[in-house]
């Protein structure tokens, strides 16, 4: 049945409803594009025959193939676009450096898209507050939650080296060590899984 492979691509993403990103299905994409090429060529020859030999009985199958072509186009663009939305979410979740296991799921072109998105976002954030202000803008990927307390207790889940806080002190983030740190300094590290907020 036509368009089956295209629908399979959609189902693949639909199965991962929590926004996870499966590996890029290069094979699947190629198969759908091949099917489109075949359908188009069959239509080209049938259209010619219909015109020259007056074969109007070919018209229903021409129409069917055209519908399948449109459906394949729609499924492919939906697959690619939905993946872009998930990739966009990664910037907000992990920051501008993606963990290796996540980066592995992106195609080369998707990585390029991600790179351009990051740059565009960065440029936008730096420009906030007006150019004349001469400031550094505002990092809106921080402050994701309303501030409840100034300092929070955190546990280090993995070795992360040194962290410098605003008054100059340097904290050594060693696995399993616990610290009482400014909340705003920890947010991104908590999201990345380096620190864990300890709620007593």
């Amino acid at each position, binding site marked *: 049945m036509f368009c089956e492979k295209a629908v399979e691509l959609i189902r693949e993403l639909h199965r991962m409803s929590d926004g996870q990103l499966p590996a890029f299905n290069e094979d699947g994409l190629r198969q759908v*594009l091949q099917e*489109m090429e075949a359908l188009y060529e069959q239509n080209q020859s049938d259209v010619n025959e219909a015109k020259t030999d007056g074969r109007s009985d070919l018209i229903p199958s021409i129409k069917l193939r055209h519908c399948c072509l449109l459906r394949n186009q729609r499924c492919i663009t939906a697959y690619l*676009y939905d993946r872009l939305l998930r990739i966009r979410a990664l910037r907000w979740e992990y920051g501008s450096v993606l963990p290796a296991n996540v980066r592995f799921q992106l195609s080369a072109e998707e990585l390029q*898209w991600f790179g351009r998105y990051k740059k565009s976002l960065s*440029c936008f954030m730096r420009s906030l507050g*007006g150019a004349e202000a001469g*400031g550094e803008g505002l990092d809106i990927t921080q*402050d994701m939650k309303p501030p409840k307390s100034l300092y929070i207790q955190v546990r280090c889940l993995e070795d992360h080296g040194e962290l410098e806080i605003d008054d100059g002190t340097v904290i050594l983030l060693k696995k399993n060590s616990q610290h009482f740190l400014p909340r705003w300094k920890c947010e991104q590290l908590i999201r990345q899984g380096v620190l864990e907020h300890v709620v007593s």
Partner: protein
Amino acid sequence: KTMSDVLSDDGSINQDDSQEDVMTPAELIAKLEEAWLNEKFSPELLESKSEVVECVMEQLTHMESNLQRVKKGDAKASVHRMEIDRIRFVLSSYLRSRLQKIEKFFPHVLEKEKSRGEGDPSLLSPEEFAFAKEYYANTETYLKAVALKRMPPNLQTVDLLKAVPEPCLDSFVFLRVKERQENILVEPETDDQREYVVDLEEGSQHLIRYRTVAPLVSSGAVQLI
């Protein structure tokens, strides 16, 4: 015209009644919070409030530098710090709401901004406009390179205005009335209903379809909650 001209160090208003937009810091933050809630609860992107954003950022810089002058360990420091964090959170959240809608509805947002009249208020700040254009170009280039140009000749374009859904203006919103409104026409929802007219009393709260009150949100007559 910036707020810093009119805000003095102790936060009092300048006695210049001929100037519009004279605001205390408290009024500025109230305006920010109103814009934040409206943007959060509105299904569509609202008018850009660049002036408020710029003034709040100036205010934050001002507060940060005041904080540097306070002795470390002074109890005032943590209260000030908390307030700075609070305001920064509201501002970030406001800008994030807007960015999310810009990305979600990008072809429509750009179309609306490009086709607005000379005197009409901007939907996007200049920075947001640049970001939206880059987002559009980035996405279109990607789709073309990876798939569209490998498709048959008559299928190599996608009309993004048709492919990307528009905001649903018929979603319901909660609101509080700030300025009394008379004779608001409410559309029927089912075939056997008829349209009817309501008056919105000041201070009253309602659950109503966004489309009906969209102009009242932008004029400030109602506040989304």
